[in-house]
């Protein structure tokens, strides 16, 4: 009773959900970093790419499997992020926000340039972990196990992050430090360390997205370069004021993009940008943004 085109529709919806997972993880990281540091992290795409490469090297050089890489890569790349924050970003405190954007743009150029130098522009394959090969026949479509895992796992991580920031004591410190760092410092909380850890955490989320995407998209030096621009548009649409807002916007735009691929493929590259333009005309602060 289901013809080929409904199958294709569901296939594109799944692709949209997968992309939405990456948008959500990346825009969530950007929002968390923006909240604490007041900078927009242009290096986010490059660090996402490093997460994927990290998983690739862990597997092919050290023989570390996917599951460990899922924990190790975000820790390693997040640690690198913390170092970048301590050595460079910290010096920009008090300056115009634009300098943070310019500095991280420079970092993105350096990282992507170095990886392009050594790995060219072609992709390196990363095998789907054994436990997640194969798939389920749902009757109306074939659902590969790995893709289902990516969507479920990303959603879980996003919701856990939301819970940690909005509902726990640590999160309340974080939110307080976002509102008034001086006062929180006066209470004896080490705010600079919190800022470093926040940046590391946001970067870790990007690296996690990189590991998740390695078996789906190949591991390429420029895999994050174009993605980050779409994620910026997602962030402008959602507004960075709300954690849940970034998650919802990320998934929703992924799905919308998937639907566009089915109904009007020519516009699939640009649909997110068009929506951004419309949202800016109607609600300049973004769907979830505060004035």
């Amino acid at each position, binding site marked *: 009773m289901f013809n080929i085109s409904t199958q294709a529709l569901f296939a594109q919806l799944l692709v949209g959900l997968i992309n939405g997972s990456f948008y959500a993880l990346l825009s969530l990281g950007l929002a968390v970093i923006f909240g604490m540091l007041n*900078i*927009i992290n242009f290096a986010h795409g490059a660090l996402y790419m490093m997460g994927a490469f990290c998983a690739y090297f862990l597997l092919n050089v050290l023989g570390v499997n996917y599951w460990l890489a899922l924990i190790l890569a975000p820790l390693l790349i997040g640690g690198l992020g913390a170092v970048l924050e301590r050595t*460079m970003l910290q*010096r*920009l405190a008090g*300056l115009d*926000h*634009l*300098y943070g*954007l*310019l*500095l991280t*743009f*420079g*970092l*993105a*150029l*350096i*990282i*992507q*340039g*170095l990886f*392009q*130098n050594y790995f060219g522009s072609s992709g390196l394959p990363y095998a789907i972990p054994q436990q997640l090969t194969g798939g389920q026949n749902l009757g109306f479509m074939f659902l590969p196990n790995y893709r289902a895992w990516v969507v479920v796992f990303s959603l879980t991580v996003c919701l856990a992050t939301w819970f940690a920031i909005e509902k726990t004591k640590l999160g309340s410190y974080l939110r307080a430090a976002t509102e008034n760092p001086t006062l929180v410092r006066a209470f004896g909380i080490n705010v600079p360390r919190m800022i470093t850890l926040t940046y590391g955490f946001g970067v870790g989320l990007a690296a996690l997205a990189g590991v998740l995407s390695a078996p789906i998209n190949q591991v390429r030096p420029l895999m994050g*370069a*174009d993605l980050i*621009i*779409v994620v*910026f*548009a997602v*962030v*402008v649409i959602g507004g960075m004021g709300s954690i849940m807002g970034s998650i919802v916007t990320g998934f929703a735009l992924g799905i919308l993009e998937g639907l566009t691929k089915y109904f009007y493929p*020519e516009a699939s*590259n*640009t649909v*997110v*940008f*068009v929506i*951004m*333009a419309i949202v*800016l*005309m109607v609600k*300049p*602060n973004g769907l979830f943004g505060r004035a």
Partner: protein
Amino acid sequence: MTTTPTKTLSAAPPKRDETTVIMAMIAVLAVLPLVGVYPYFVMQALCFALFACAFNLLIGYVGLLSFGHAMFLGTAGYASAHAAKVWGLPPELCIIFGTVAAAVLGLLVGLIAIRRQGIYFSMTTLALAQMMYFFYLQAKFTHGEDGIQGVPRDPFLGFLDISKPLVLFYVVLAIFVAGFLLIYRTINSPFGEILKAIRENEPRAISLGYRTARYKLAAFVLSAGLAGLAGATKVIVSQNASLTDVRWEMSGEVVLMTLVGGLGTIFGPVVGAFVIIAMQQYLAEFGQWVLVIQGVIFVACVLAFRRGLVGELAQALSRNL
């Protein structure tokens, strides 16, 4: 109409100094090809210098960091290349057509982008520029990856034979000087003073009764149009229009040129453009290392060298350059 400058605005600069430096700059540029510098290099650098000056008008005098200025450079390039090759228009009309096309795009993008400030403005312009990139990638008339090649060089104004490098050079120099002087005049006009007031304190400018959104939009359209003038001229020089000019890397490059020369200085973007274009020429054989080096310059400038070359010089001489 005059405005009282706020305390952070510097007093009116010594005009005679600037006029002298402008004359000296034009004189030096005019003799460059005569003393053995490759004219094509200077022409290319001049186009980028005008592009960077147009970009600097926004970041330096209105405080708006556009991260999508390549869309104006590239749009004007495609428009003028199409006008020259397919419609057979003379080069002066092609350049005007390209400039107008960029200004119209600037009006549309500006209406959307100036609704947000700060980094949201930067992200919006970047995203809209990426949208234009995908449009040009798919559009038929741009010939995708090939670009529009072999753009003709008909006589300029009907009598200047721009197929001769030296004639073309002086035409390009004249266009650059015209664009540069227009920007110089703008930032020293009452309109320019209001732009600076918006940069320093937008709420105060609003409370003084200025409709700041209109001023910002006017500055954005002017900047887009001048970036278009640079893009259209660049196409007549290089005889091809390609996707390179609309990519985000190009938007980043103009930010770099302006940053290296000095944000918000009059001569900084020109110096920065020459430095970066020269660097690219010398490092062309090193492939992707160029990107890495540009990244390092970005980081070094932001961390240690925020005034840029001309900004530091101006500081050392206690002058406004």
